[in-house]
């Protein structure tokens, strides 16, 4: 049976920010409009029961990520119930994790996370000039100051250092990677991960002139140089994973390398869906044909179904260019959503293929100096 390693639980379908690049609200999928704003207690209970059974049968730990929209819009009282219910249902080996924009990261929320061992990752794109370019609230006000207040509260909490998993940044091509890295490091985050702007072959990511241009690869190459020059570095997850693959190791990040990953998404109404990033390919791209729900369906049966297996199989690149590429074991063909075109479906290279090959080439240049290329 396919092993599930990540379960995204959508605690809220709405957000208190209105980020320009958001794949949930600004890339053509409007499913959030028909979702309940918040996950109800009955759906939380059903989710916990289904996940408990999933763990019992697959006997492999997975991570539960509280996600949205903005998950903390569920409210402090309900959030405490979610954490307590899932922590009770699942063994300690299953990580609970909160991905938040940080605006509602109150002392109460941090205390709840400490009580139930919930790791916290915060979305932050860099200094205010970079972050506020795209991450305004719903009335157009900048959010950077409020995010930083949340980070300070987290750092001041006695358990803050152990709870703070890192920051998640979306690449802003107009920014200076050295400035972004230095700022994110200054927050005290132990780790940072960078995401590219979502896009595909029909709708190019912001800043890419064409599928063969390398704007993102060039930006990441500059970041790589800064990273490898730092004598006291924090971790950059995507670069670490790619470098380790080049050194003969393994990666854990979706869209990098060829290790299989298993992701389930549970929406606020309890429906079970595919990786939500597929929304950015086309409307309802994250929907199974069968309308599964934790209220009515067993997760093991869902994961064992032919439709789920086909979805899982789709993470493997299928286009001939990828299959013949010497860098395939490093880039893994990228995220499925970035391979999309109306003409070929997901049977393309990633729209970031040229960027990733550029970055891999730069990585090899660095590793060769130390004779570290496997």
């Amino acid at each position, binding site marked *: 049976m396919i092993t599930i390693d*990540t379960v995204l639980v959508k605690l809220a379908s709405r957000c208190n920010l209105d980020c320009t690049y958001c794949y949930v609200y600004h890339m053509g999928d409007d499913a959030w409009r028909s979702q309940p704003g918040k996950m109800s207690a009955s759906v939380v209970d059903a989710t916990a029961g289904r996940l408990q059974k999933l763990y019992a049968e697959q006997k492999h730990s997975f991570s539960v990520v509280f*996600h949205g929209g903005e998950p903390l819009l569920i409210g402090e009282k309900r959030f405490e119930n979610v954490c307590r219910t899932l922590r009770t249902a699942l063994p300690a080996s299953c990580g609970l994790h909160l991905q938040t924009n940080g605006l509602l990261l109150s002392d109460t929320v941090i205390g709840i996370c400490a009580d139930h061992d919930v790791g916290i990752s915060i979305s932050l794109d860099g200094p205010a000039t970079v972050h506020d370019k795209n991450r305004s609230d719903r009335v157009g006000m900048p959010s950077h100051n409020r995010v930083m207040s949340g980070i300070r509260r987290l750092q001041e909490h006695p358990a803050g250092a152990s709870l703070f998993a890192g920051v998640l940044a979306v690449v802003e091509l107009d920014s200076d990677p050295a400035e972004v890295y230095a700022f994110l490091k200054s927050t005290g985050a132990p780790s940072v991960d960078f995401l590219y702007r979502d896009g595909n072959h029909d709708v190019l990511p912001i800043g890419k002139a064409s599928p063969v241009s390398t704007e993102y690869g060039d930006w990441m190459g500059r970041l790589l140089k800064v990273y490898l020059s730092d004598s006291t570095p924090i971790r950059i997850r995507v670069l670490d994973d790619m470098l380790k693959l080049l050194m*003969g190791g393994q990666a854990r990040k979706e869209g990098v390398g060829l290790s299989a990953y298993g992701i389930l998404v549970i929406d606020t109404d309890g429906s079970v869906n595919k990786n939500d990033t597929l929304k950015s390919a086309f409307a309802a791209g994250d929907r199974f044909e069968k309308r599964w729900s934790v209220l009515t369906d067993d997760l093991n049966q869902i994961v064992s179904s032919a439709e789920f297996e086909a979805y899982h199989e789709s993470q493997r690149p299928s286009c001939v260019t990828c299959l013949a590429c010497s860098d395939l074991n490093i880039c893994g063909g990228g995220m499925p959503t970035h391979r999309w075109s109306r003409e070929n479906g997901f049977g393309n290279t990633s729209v970031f293929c040229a960027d990733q090959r550029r970055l891999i080439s730069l990585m090899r240049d660095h590793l060769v100096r130390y004779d*570290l290329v496997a």
Partner: protein
Amino acid sequence: MDNNPSHETSYPTEVESDVKLDNVTLARLLEEVRNGETVQPNAYNRQHNRHNR
């Protein structure tokens, strides 16, 4: 696709013996590759400290 790769990884002999690689990040990553898994606390993996990708 191999879900649980168990292939042997070879490293250049001179690097194996040179544990004082002068690049902090590459030295850490080499150590992790040798150990077959991330061992550092606060490191991302797919069971802990995950975001959505």
